[in-house]
């Protein structure tokens, strides 16, 4: 090895070997040092996760003391099971609606030629996920509330006599869930659409397939992995929703997030809340793992 000859200031262009040596040195010492600041910042989060896990098996409902599965056993009550069922139902329904709306939206954004229109569409779709949920709930209340725009218009037109109840029930929560999780499906689908090449569709059309036929037989199967992963993210996001049912459900639509909070706020049942949260995390993890399995299975099939 002639590495030592190049120590100090080389006057010639570096040999490839020199670069390899520098990287080897880097790899041995620096990575953990470089990761350290970020690891420090994420430590409270990890501590919080472990703390909840520990609290959920505490024998005392108000403090960490001893081990017991009592908190989990006590969850098997009608009010909590109803919450679980409602959460699953709303999350599944909203996921279906989101996917049905997200495919056309992604198609529209991807195929828009003008860059500025594409930017407008992107921003309009992205904003609901970023913007503070409180402000959006104001918007829904103004639109759908008892004195909101739609009820006022319908009453003035004489179509209805008493205002329709569009908010503070499951329908209102569903609408809020669809709105806030729409971007989570649109953007992954936009990148998934890159695999749907124009040639495939032209070939199909050349063979006499109609527009619908090529959508069903070519576009949808190619989008399938993207659809599954987007759907699972939307489901996980909506199953753990808190602000939307709090603000648009008027406390009557008790999804899991609200049920967990109610255990703390009036009841001070901390270990029960922790156990309820673990159930929620379990549901989300199962859905994510199942979807990963589905995606890997469908891509393996695609290859063979």
């Amino acid at each position: 090895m002639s590495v030592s000859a190049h120590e100090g200031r080389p006057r010639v262009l570096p040999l490839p070997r020199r670069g390899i040596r520098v990287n080897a040195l880097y790899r041995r010492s620096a990575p953990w040092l470089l990761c350290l600041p970020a690891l420090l910042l994420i430590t409270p989060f990890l501590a919080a996760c472990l703390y909840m896990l520990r609290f959920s098996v505490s024998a005392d409902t108000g403090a960490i003391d001893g081990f017991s599965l009592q908190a989990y056993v006590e969850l098997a009550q009608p009010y909590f099971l109803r919450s679980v069922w409602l959460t699953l139902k709303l999350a599944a329904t909203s996921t279906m609606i989101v996917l049905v709306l997200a495919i056309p939206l992604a198609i529209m954004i991807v195929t828009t030629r003008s860059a500025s229109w594409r930017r407008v569409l992107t921003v309009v779709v992205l904003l609901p996920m970023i913007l503070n949920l409180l402000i959006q709930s104001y918007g829904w209340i103004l639109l759908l509330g008892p004195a909101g725009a739609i009820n006022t218009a319908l009453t003035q037109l004489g179509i209805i006599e008493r205002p329709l109840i569009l908010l503070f029930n499951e329908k209102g929560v569903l609408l809020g869930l669809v709105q806030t999780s729409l971007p989570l499906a649109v953007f992954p689908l936009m990148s998934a659409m890159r695999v749907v090449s124009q040639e495939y569709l032209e070939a199909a059309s050349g063979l006499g397939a109609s527009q619908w036929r090529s959508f069903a037989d070519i576009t949808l199967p190619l989008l399938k992995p993207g659809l599954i992963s987007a759907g699972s993210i939307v489901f996980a996001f909506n199953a753990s929703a808190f602000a939307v049912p709090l603000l648009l459900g008027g406390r009557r639509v008790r999804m899991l997030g609200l049920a967990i909070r109610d255990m703390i706020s009036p009841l001070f049942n901390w270990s029960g809340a922790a156990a309820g949260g673990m159930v929620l995390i379990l549901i989300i993890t199962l859905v994510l793992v199942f979807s990963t399995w589905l995606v890997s299975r469908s891509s393996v099939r695609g290859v063979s």
Partner: protein
Amino acid sequence: MSRVGLMPEEGGGSYKLLVCLLAGIGIIIAAAPMAIIVIMSFSAAETSSFPPSEFSLRWYETALTLFSSDESSGSQAVGAALSSSLLVGLVVMVLSVAACIPLAYALVRGQRRLRQSMELLFTLPLVFPLVMLGIAFLLIAESLRWELGIWRLIIPHLALVMPFVLRNCMSAMQSISRETEEAAISLGASPLRAGLDIVVPLMKPGILAGLIFAFIISFNEFTITFFMYTIDQSTLPIWMYSRTVSSLDPSTLALSVFIILIDLVMIIAIDKIIAGRSSLF
């Protein structure tokens, strides 16, 4: 002009009609709440009946006076809530980006295994239910009995923004070739100098997008702050919530329009910086 495709330019019949219809419904669902807030904030009436019979800027004036007075309303004043919102957002954005730059470097240049496990670790906050995080942080803060001050809000927000910041930094890092810094090192620069003078400037777009993302997410955060806030340490969304929990005051709508505008400007900035080089998340 192609007659077939995802969105045929000619013809297309029922397919094109349905795609446009559904996309239109999606856009309406996404934009309707914000649109009506903007319209109603210019209403001259006391009530929130739509459409407004007259337009005025009176609610904007009321919103402005909120900032100057409102010292004795018991809870925190709007000015204090706004300034702590900004402070939390700024600290979160600086700290998260400063931590993610070296991390992104180590992950892109490092071994595959390290990269996969770290990426998984830093994606966790994205799928972890916010209610649980809020409760957990509250429990820990209560049991520690430390005077955390504004860090009560900063620490949870940091975990929340890390996935977004890291993703932006990593996608910027991926486009920097190994040879550039090796050239600097072989010309006598120390690895640290090569990192600071060569790699960091080249990562600039990703760093900028990460900074804005971190700020915008922290600035709009509601759920965790809902659990963590105290009388002294609160943010603008929580102030608005406690003000409107019983009834909706039109001056809050004027305030909302300000926030929508801030968010809009920042999202457009991110979109311009990223400019199709990587997906938004």
